[in-house]
């Protein structure tokens, strides 16, 4: 027959066990919650992806400018705009204004009313001679029908991937031929020698290894766009890559998740991973990702 001291000990053990179970549950839930917080958000529709609203100076005048990244990336390399023309990689850091455009910088580097591209003269940005309709081509926020190009029709013949246009295939197949030189601004260089691709070993056992195409990135970006600003060291093992830093816009997240394919597209970096991050389908798309 159990004594009273044995019963007390049993009760104490039971209470201890309950506390342990509760603590474990709290730990588990906390981890799940933090992982949920750090899952990439569902990206917008491909037509809206990478859209930049420029409203540093124009809000009071003709209204904010809407810049479609997809339109320009189909025609130019990342390098030519972000190195040669000088568009910063951070929002509001370039200092674009009507004055700088008229001086032949920023948008005016190409949009000068003189350059001919694909057989057409490129309209002049912020020209004094422009009428309201012409201004509205760029200063188009909230103005229906003001923009000349629409995503769906413009990219109709482009190869598609899991999320919008597959730009890599588009370039390989010759559908797009991004230009890497702007007369008067770019420096004549010898053609880029292809860089070796390499695999990045994941720091954690549960993460699939990453296949990184150095060749593709260096041809589109040049060397100086990524090094040293985005990837500041060449010593292996010194950068601790993580999805947390990517989602916060650092490392790969400097482009991926903003303008280059979204971080939700797991398989593009982790070939053995899932195709798309579960539960993060683009807004307005419940079944299929275009």
């Amino acid at each position, binding site marked *: 027959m159990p004594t009273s001291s044995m019963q007390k000990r049993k009760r104490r053990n039971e209470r201890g066990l309950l506390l342990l179970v509760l603590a474990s549950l709290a730990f588990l839930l906390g981890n799940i919650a933090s992982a949920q917080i750090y899952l990439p958000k569902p990206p917008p529709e491909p037509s809206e992806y990478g859209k930049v609203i420029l409203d540093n100076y124009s809000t009071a005048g003709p209204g904010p400018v809407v810049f479609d990244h997809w339109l320009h990336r189909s025609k130019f390399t990342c390098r030519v705009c972000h*190195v*040669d*023309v*000088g568009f*910063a990689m951070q929002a509001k850091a370039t*200092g674009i204004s009507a*004055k*700088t455009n008229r*001086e032949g*910088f920023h948008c005016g580097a190409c949009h000068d009313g003189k350059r001919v591209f694909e057989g057409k003269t490129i309209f002049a940005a912020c020209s004094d001679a422009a009428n309201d309709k012409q201004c509205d081509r760029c200063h188009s926020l909230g103005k229906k029908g003001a923009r000349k190009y629409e995503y769906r029709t413009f990219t109709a013949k482009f190869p598609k991937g899991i999320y919008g246009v597959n730009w890599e295939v588009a370039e390989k197949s010759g559908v797009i031929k991004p230009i890497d030189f702007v007369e008067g601004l770019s*420096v*004549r*260089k*010898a053609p*880029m*020698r292809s860089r070796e691709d390499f695999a990045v070993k994941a720091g954690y056992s549960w993460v699939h290894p990453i296949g990184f195409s150095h060749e593709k990135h*260096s041809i589109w970006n*040049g*060397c*100086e*766009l990524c*090094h*040293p*600003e985005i990837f*500041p*060291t*060449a*010593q292996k093992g010194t950068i601790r890559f993580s999805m947390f830093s990517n989602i916060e816009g650092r490392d790969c997240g400097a482009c991926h998740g903003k303008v280059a394919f979204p971080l939700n597209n797991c398989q593009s970096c982790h070939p053995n991973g899932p195709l798309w991050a579960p539960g993060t389908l683009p807004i307005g798309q419940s079944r299929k990702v275009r």
Partner: protein
Amino acid sequence: MVFKPKFFKGKFRATIITVLLFLGLAGVCALRASGGPQSSAAQADQAKESWRKEFDSICAKTQDAMTFSQEELTDLIRRCDALLPQIEKLDETRKKVYVGRLRMCRGLYAYVLDAKKKEKK
């Protein structure tokens, strides 16, 4: 007694002067076409744009940075540092664009140099 040849007078003299003037004009044109002496304004413009030549020369090599020796990289970094004060004198927009671009070129060379130094260790 002063020698005064008769043929330097009248019609012949006028012909000689015309020919000499024509030859002189042709000479000036030839000199300009061959890129001879320019006006001081043109020379000033050229001096003003000399920074651009140096900039192009430095930044044209970025894609080959990995192939350079430590000495070559150090020299390129030195040239970037020497060019910076010239670019800083430019007007606001140019300054912003080209200082940014020079910073990128210099940064890359310093990055590769650093990698090479660490590799040697």
